[in-house]
């Protein structure tokens, strides 16, 4: 079966300028969204605080929960409803004593609903010290992974390919963060894990096309780099679409069936994968092409 005819000859290179404009717009929207929301919606992993996931035997309204929390002066907490019976309560880090916080919340819930009238499914408490630690580590991990990719690709191909790759990665991370910000999703540790995975996947994708470009360049064809790129991208189109589709489907299944805990992670991955494929064709390659115009590559056999 052939999804893509073997003789496709789409002029990708021709649409590079248009693509560049689109990319800039998308990046602008992403950064704009983050600025408009006043920063990222940081979860407790970074901002500190307490999160409790509580399930009730019957449908319970957020108002009644808020009332119950009024006793311990936590009615200002954020209460998110997962389902009619299950909520997630998030208290701000600014609350005085982090240590006894979860037990006090449990006491308040006991008073309002009776000891067996609720079930605590999950508790996460992050002190400010740990929160800062995690934030630092997260930023370092992402930045260092970019650098590591740059080094590896530059070594296996040429420096310009590394640059193309890393710009594509930065684009992917920004776009993913932007979409999450637009949807006002919470930024947690697992989102960082998703971002790092996206870095890995996107560069994976980029390298497959680079590999083909490298192979075609070495063949000594009497074509300029732009034409070689077109050929390469067309040749690998079948594989690119196929693999992206399988990963995409797999993620959709995870999104629908994986449960609430994984939801944000899977969402981020989905955005990242789509962005990853786009950036491979329309960001990494054009950059290498632009570089070529300034200084021709040494990889070609003339």
């Amino acid at each position, binding site marked *: 079966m052939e999804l893509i005819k073997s003789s496709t000859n789409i002029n990708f290179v021709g649409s590079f300028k248009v693509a560049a404009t689109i990319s800039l717009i998308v990046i602008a929207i992403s950064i704009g969204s983050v600025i408009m929301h006043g920063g990222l919606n940081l979860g407790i992993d970074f901002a500190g605080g307490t999160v409790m996931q509580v399930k009730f035997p019957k449908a319970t309204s957020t108002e009644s929960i808020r009332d119950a929390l009024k006793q311990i002066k936590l009615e200002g907490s954020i209460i998110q409803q997962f389902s009619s019976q299950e909520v997630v309560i998030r208290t701000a880090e600014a609350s005085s004593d982090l240590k006894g916080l979860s037990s006090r919340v449990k006491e308040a819930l006991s008073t309002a609903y009776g000891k067996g009238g609720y079930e605590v499914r999950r508790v996460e408490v992050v002190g400010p010290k740990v929160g800062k630690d995690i934030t630092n580590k997260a930023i370092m991990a992402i930045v260092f992974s970019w650098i590591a990719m740059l080094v590896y690709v530059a070594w296996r191909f040429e420096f310009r390919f590394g640059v193309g790759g890393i710009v594509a990665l930065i684009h992917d991370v920004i776009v993913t963060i932007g979409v999450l910000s637009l949807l006002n999703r919470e930024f947690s540790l697992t989102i960082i894990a998703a971002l790092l995975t996206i870095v890995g996947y996107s560069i994976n994708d980029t390298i497959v096309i680079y590999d083909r470009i490298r192979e075609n360049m070495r063949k000594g064809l009497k074509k300029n780099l732009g034409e070689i790129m077109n050929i390469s991208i067309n040749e690998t189109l079948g594989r690119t679409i196929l693999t992206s589709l399988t990963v995409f489907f797999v993620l959709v299944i995870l999104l629908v069936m994986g449960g609430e805990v*994984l939801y944000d992670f899977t969402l981020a991955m989905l955005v990242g994968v789509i962005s990853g494929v786009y950036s491979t064709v329309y960001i990494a390659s054009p950059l290498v092409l632009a570089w070529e115009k300034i200084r021709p590559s040494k990889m070609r056999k003339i």
Partner: protein
Amino acid sequence: MFKSIRIRAALAAVVCLAALVYLLPSVTDNLPSFWKEHLTKEKIHLGLDLQGGTHLVLEVDTNKAVESSLERMANNLKDTLMENKVRFHNLERRKGDIIVEMQEGAPGGSIENILKDHFPDLEIASSEKVAGKETATLRFQAKRIAEIKKLAVEQSLETIRNRVDQFGVSEPEIIPEGTDRIIVQLPGIKDVERAKNLIGKTALLEFKLVDDEHSLDDALKGNVPEGDVLLYGYNQNRETGGRTSSPYLLKNKTLMTGESIESAQVKISDRFGESYVSIKFNPQGAADFERITGENVKKRLAIILDGAVYSAPVIQERIGGGQAQITGSFTLDDAKDLAIVLRAGALPAPVNVLEERTVGPSLGQDSIEKGLWSTFIAGMLVIIFMLVYYKLSGIIADVALLLNMLLLVGALAAFRATLTLPGIAGIVLTIGMAVDANVLIFERIKEELRTGKTVRAAIEAGYNKAFSAILDSNVTTLIAAVFLFQFGTGPVKGFAVTLTIGLIASMFTAIFVTRIIFDYFAWSKKIQTLSV
């Protein structure tokens, strides 16, 4: 690669069999005993987010440990100075310093001698002479401070381990992290609050005398006599659930501490069925106790835990035999926990909870179910897709996929890696990404066939040319996974592990195993066309 199909097939079979061996214990409990003894009976280790349990990050307040040590030093120094007839106006500890005020001209030089002879760990940080008085500031030497801090963490580790052991959690993990942090993992724990209290309790038990000579009311108004301290006891009214506190005026000097206790047990009193803790002193402690009770008959001896007075009974007579009782308004659990901390010993410094992650067993169970279903359906989808798109070659890809899963799970069991919920996501993702290697090879083979090569040549060329792409792309994803592993906490680490193992296994199955099958058909069966 080895040319012989037989050798390669045997190698592949061995690897897969090994994976199966490691996998079986997790799937079934009915293994023959020979298996359990000689091979392995380890099930796959589930993370806390799948089996339920709690993960705590504790921080030992090492500065307080240094301050307590310094306090003890200060008291000893006072005694030594007095024994050696070195006069001083005042000696007290303020935070990290001991301040000694003396008359100028008084044998000040002897402070240095005293330090040299008796207190080598202390050094004079500074000294100044003002208006006829000489003030010396003493501190611990930096080396000693580092020692105390290290010791505090080690002791805390040991004590917490003892406490958790007695709490009866299966497979707890208590690991130090960094210079002053301790990670405690308690799988399957039901009552998290109780565990946190048990672990975090400093549990410093002290015996002090009640000061009956001075007025309690005066002290409450603010006039606490020299050498005395005002402490409170808390009573819980069982019926109303309310708490009342009563003040006690005590002599500050601690006569005995929990270190003198050899064992502690929970008992139930005949009179009201109340629980209390019966303690037994070690021989030295028993002797001390006898002496103290003998010297203070009819006075009251306060029993204080972490600065709260539990009780202050009257000493009726000198008590030999080294036994005592701690009573209070205890529930059975309270008494049990008190006995545990008394047996395990006091923490040398206060311990703060920096981070807590608790997952209830029901959520854990839910997560496992959702994870397994997602994996299954994703797998089915990909298998069908491969079949439809690549026809018979698709079957080969599917076989590779199934083997891939087998190797992945087997490796998890073999390396005793922990499977977490993100780890299951990693398995699902691997299903999607692992096919990539197969796709690269198959597409390449198709291309080569189109240029007119024979089946054998096309297969050879396909694998060779696709190899560089597969290698480079997988290596970079692996690099990302390494970063993930370094940076992530428990659940995220689990994701990095499954992704890594999954990718390596996929390279093995895609490059090595499928090649065996293709070569078999191309060389042994000598087919002329390839269904791909």
